[in-house]
C-alpha cells in the first residue's frame, strides 16, 4: 500500500539552529501538507502546497518556516532558527485529488529543540 515516508524520525537540535524535515509523498499525489502536534495537544495545520506554490498557511507558519519541493519526489519543511516552542511531532501528508478527498499522513518526525 502506498505510504507517505518521512525522515528523520527523530531529531534533536540546539535552539537557533536550522532544521530540514523531509518527506516523500505518495507518488502521483498532487497536494502536500505539513501538520504538527505538540505533545498532548491537537494536530494543527501548518501549510498546504499545490502546483509548486503554497495554497494556504496558518498563523503558525511564519517567516521562520518554508516549504519546498526540490524535485519530483521530495517535499521539505525548513525551520530557519528553531525555538523551544517548535518542539513537536511534524507530520507530512498528501492527497491525490484535492478538496474533500482523503489526506494520508506519514509517521511523523519528532523534533526536540534544546
Amino acid at each position, binding site marked *: 500500500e502506498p505510504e507517505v515516508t518521512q525522515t528523520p524520525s527523530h531529531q534533536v537540535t540546539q535552539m537557533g539552529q536550522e532544521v530540514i524535515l523531509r518527506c516523500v509523498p505518495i507518488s502521483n499525489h498532487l497536494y502536500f501538507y505539513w501538520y504538527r502536534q505538540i505533545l498532548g495537544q491537537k494536530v494543527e495545520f501548518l501549510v498546504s502546497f499545490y502546483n509548486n506554490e503554497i495554497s494556504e498557511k496558518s498563523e503558525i507558519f511564519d517567516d521562520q518556516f518554508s516549504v519546498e519541493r526540490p524535485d519530483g519526489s521530495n517535499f521539505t519543511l525548513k525551520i530557519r532558527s528553531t525555538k523551544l516552542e517548535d518542539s513537536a511531532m511534524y*507530520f507530512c501528508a498528501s492527497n491525490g485529488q484535492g478538496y*474533500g478527498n482523503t489526506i494520508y499522513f506519514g509517521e511523523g518526525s519528532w523534533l526536540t529543540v534544546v
Partner: protein
Amino acid sequence: EDQVTQSPEALRLQEGESSSLNCSYTVSGLRGLFWYRQDPGKGPEFLFTLYSAGEEKEKERLKATLTKKESFLHITAPKPEDSATYLCAVEKGGKLIFGQGTELSVKP
C-alpha cells in the same frame, strides 16, 4: 469560530463492551468529515470519510455515522488491539481541523 470537539476525552472498555465516540463540529462549508486512528508516537491512520448527513461507513468493528452537527464512531465488541486515540477532523478550505481525540483503552 470553526471548532471540532470530541467526547469523551478518554474511554476505558472491557473487551467485547460496545460503545460510541462523539465528534461535534461547528464548521461552515463542510467538505468532508474524517476519522483517523493514531497509535502513540505514530501518524494518523485513515479510517473513514463521510460527506453528507445520513451517510454511514463500516470497517470491521467500526462504524461511522454523520448528522448535520456531529458524527459518531461506534465500536462493536472491541478487542485490545482497538486501543488507540481516535481523531475526528473536518475539512474546510483544503485543510483539516482536528478535534483533540478520544483515547480508547480496551482491557482483556
